[in-house]
């Protein structure tokens, strides 16, 4: 009986953790889908539709909350994936590499070199240190996101997983969570390595407790600006575009929507998270195209938009096929290269 009570109590605590985690991101102002940022995005979308598209208030609100989008089969799959991924996240998060471990490792690696000494810049004014740190953090975070995202599209192994995100045929702010768990792990590793390394280097140069990120309301300054500037509209049907010169610097919502386009000509464009500079520098920039002509998603043979089992398992099947292909090709090559 006691064992049964203990099992039920453990199960109950897992359920509680899960239910809390389901709503946590909506209530966490560090997350993109925080209700406050969602509300700001709604206001921005309505103002945009009224002022630039000439819709009335009623029409604008109706378009923003278009039920054909929010209750489409693709969107329902997004919500389902969000719920499943929360469970997977609770199960695997304890096993992921800790960012602190990367920081400590790099810190001690730096201490082995003799070029610059520990704390050699700790006398700099704190305002300058915070500014440099915040900028470095932002640039390295954004640049590494660009490169990982680019790799996701260009390497077959990674594309197999990233397709899950691109299979969305309608987009809502929740689509940001429509990702295969393997992709989440890869992005998490990216953060651990890049941010861990930045902090390790800064701790070595400036001192362990001598620097911090510039924040607004407790949130990283750049994340805050990104989120209040309508980051949620990137995954939406509201085509807010910037002037071309600005779209070379910052990715507009419409540019990211183009990134999700089904058209061949839009493939492998606009990988950037916040900055468009990387796309511009590395030749993947595409200015926005508005007018409601963009269709989102992938062709049916590539990935299913709605079949949950396929969404989770197909990437593994594709990878095993790739491996089989590589293996058989290798065998053939060996036979050809070494004729009797």
């Amino acid at each position, binding site marked *: 009986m006691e064992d049964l009570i203990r099992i039920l109590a453990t199960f109950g605590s897992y359920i509680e953790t899960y239910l809390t985690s389901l709503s946590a991101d909506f209530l*966490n102002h*560090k*997350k*993109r889908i925080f209700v406050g940022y969602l509300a700001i995005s709604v206001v921005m979308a309505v103002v945009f539709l009224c002022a630039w598209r000439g819709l009335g208030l009623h029409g604008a609100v109706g378009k923003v909350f278009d039920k054909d989008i929010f209750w489409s089969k693709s969107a329902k799959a997004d919500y389902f994936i969000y719920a499943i991924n929360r469970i997977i996240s609770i199960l695997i998060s304890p096993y992921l590499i*800790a*960012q*602190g*471990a*990367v*920081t*400590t490792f790099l*810190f*001690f690696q730096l*201490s082995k070199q003799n070029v610059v*000494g*520990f*704390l*050699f810049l*700790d006398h700099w004014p704190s305002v300058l240190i915070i500014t440099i740190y915040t900028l470095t*953090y932002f640039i390295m*975070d954004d640049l590494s*996101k660009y490169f990982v*995202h680019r790799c996701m599209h260009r390497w077959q192994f990674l594309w197999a997983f990233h397709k899950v*995100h691109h299979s969305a045929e309608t987009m809502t702010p929740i689509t*940001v969570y429509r*990702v295969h768990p393997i*992709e*989440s*792990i890869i*992005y*998490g590793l*990216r*953060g*651990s390595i890049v*941010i*861990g390394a930045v*902090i*390790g280097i800064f*701790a070595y140069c400036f*001192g*362990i*407790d001598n620097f*911090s*990120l510039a924040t607004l309301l407790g*949130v*990283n300054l750049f*994340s805050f600006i990104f989120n209040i500037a309508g980051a949620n509209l*990137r995954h939406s049907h509201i085509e807010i575009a910037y002037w071309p010169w600005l779209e070379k610097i910052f990715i507009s919502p419409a540019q*990211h929507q183009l*990134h999700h386009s089904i058209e061949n000509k839009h493939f492998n464009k606009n990988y950037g*998270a916040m900055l468009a500079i990387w796309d511009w520098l590395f030749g993947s920039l595409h200015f926005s195209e508005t007018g409601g002509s963009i269709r989102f998603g992938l062709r049916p043979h590539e990935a299913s938009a709605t079949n949950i089992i396929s969404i989770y398992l197909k990437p593994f099947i594709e990878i095993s096929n790739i491996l089989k292909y590589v293996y058989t090709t290798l065998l053939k090559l060996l036979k050809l290269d070494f004729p009797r």
Partner: protein
Amino acid sequence: MISHRLTASALAICVSATALTAHHFYGPYPVTLKGYSGDKTNSVSYGGQIARQTMEQSLKKLASTGNGGGNAADVEAQMMQYFSGPTKDLAILSPTSKDGFKIKQTTIGELSSSANLEGKFYKGLMPAWPGNHTGVDVMKDMISRAAKSNKGFDAENGYDYAQLISKFTMGAVQYSQAVDNYLDEKMTADVKPNDAPYKEGKHYTGKEHSWDEGFGYFGAPAHALALTPAAAYDIAKRKDMASADRNGDGVVDLKSEMVFGPAYYAAAFDKSGNTNYLASIMQAYIDGRKVISGAQGEKLSATELAVIKGHAGTIEENWEKVLAEAVFKYAGSVYKDIAAMKESGVDDKSYRKYVKHWGELAGFSMAIQSGRKNLGAAAVEMNKLIGFGPVTTDNSYVTGVDGNGNFVRDRKMTWSDYQLNMLKIQKLVSDSFGVKSRANDMLDELAKMSASADADTNAETD
């Protein structure tokens, strides 16, 4: 009717609680020696070890009584008497009674008639101190220098002798004797057997007394398992008479009710809630003693000896961790002291605090190197990082001694580089000994910085 039932239930709970806790005291244990016909009923005895605990604490007191050279000869003679004996007629200088904390014994002779520290001091090489001396010679050197110093403080070279002497002794006598002698050699089959008295005429067996002596060096009261870490800590600080005076006779018996150095540090780290050193060590001592008592004066079997060695292993493992925790903690203290001096400038007070913490760091580092195990590369690295002395106000530090025995400070290091050494010590100790209490954890500060940097948004993708 209901009240009768309640009373009976309360009584039953009290009786069972008493029965439960009685098992948790170290002693009394019956006399099991075959053929003993005297009137003793308790075979527990470790007065000599408690006497040495008071000698160590008294030496610490005396190390701060020098006036800069004028009374050096007197102070050194006095310290040497507490170190080498005879100690029988010497007053216990610490711990002593104070308001609200009355101690039963006032002289060392009330604890033991012949104990001294020198005879039991670690005699292996101690490379952490300049001069390439054995442990016992390092201590004599420290005593001599302490006597010449001003209140135990050598500002020029950065030494706090009270701290160095006290912490080193805690390893070189208490730890070393327990883990490398009484719980080691003396727990083998042919040494101090259980079917013979420890010495001719004694009422306890060889194994009983050897184990008791090992326990005495730990410095825990017999009722340590009934104490919270905070209460044990406060007893050592003479702040909690109620918790100390187990038998309620109004005085604290140093033999069975006081908390001394090694147990005090175990309790101090346990206060963090991350460790359970005091209880783990105490339980192992009690369990080991029960096996010996259970043999009823017969020779211990190979199985019984193996069980006892297992308990000895638990004691050694946890005790070593306590010393490692101390090295970890004081490396963090030294790091913070330097940061504070860099921030606000070096003054007498901040420098004195820094030197005190360095003395604790170096003393505990020597202590952990005085045990049974050869720590190998970890010890070499630790000594290199700590150095023979701390970085002093002109950035020089002690690198050795000249032909006349004077300290030489012919190299310099920046404060920042020395801070880095402290971080490396914390990492080394963490990697080598698996510390868990982790007081003053500067590595954690580093990891926390990283964890706080919006790690939760890292996995966001597009």
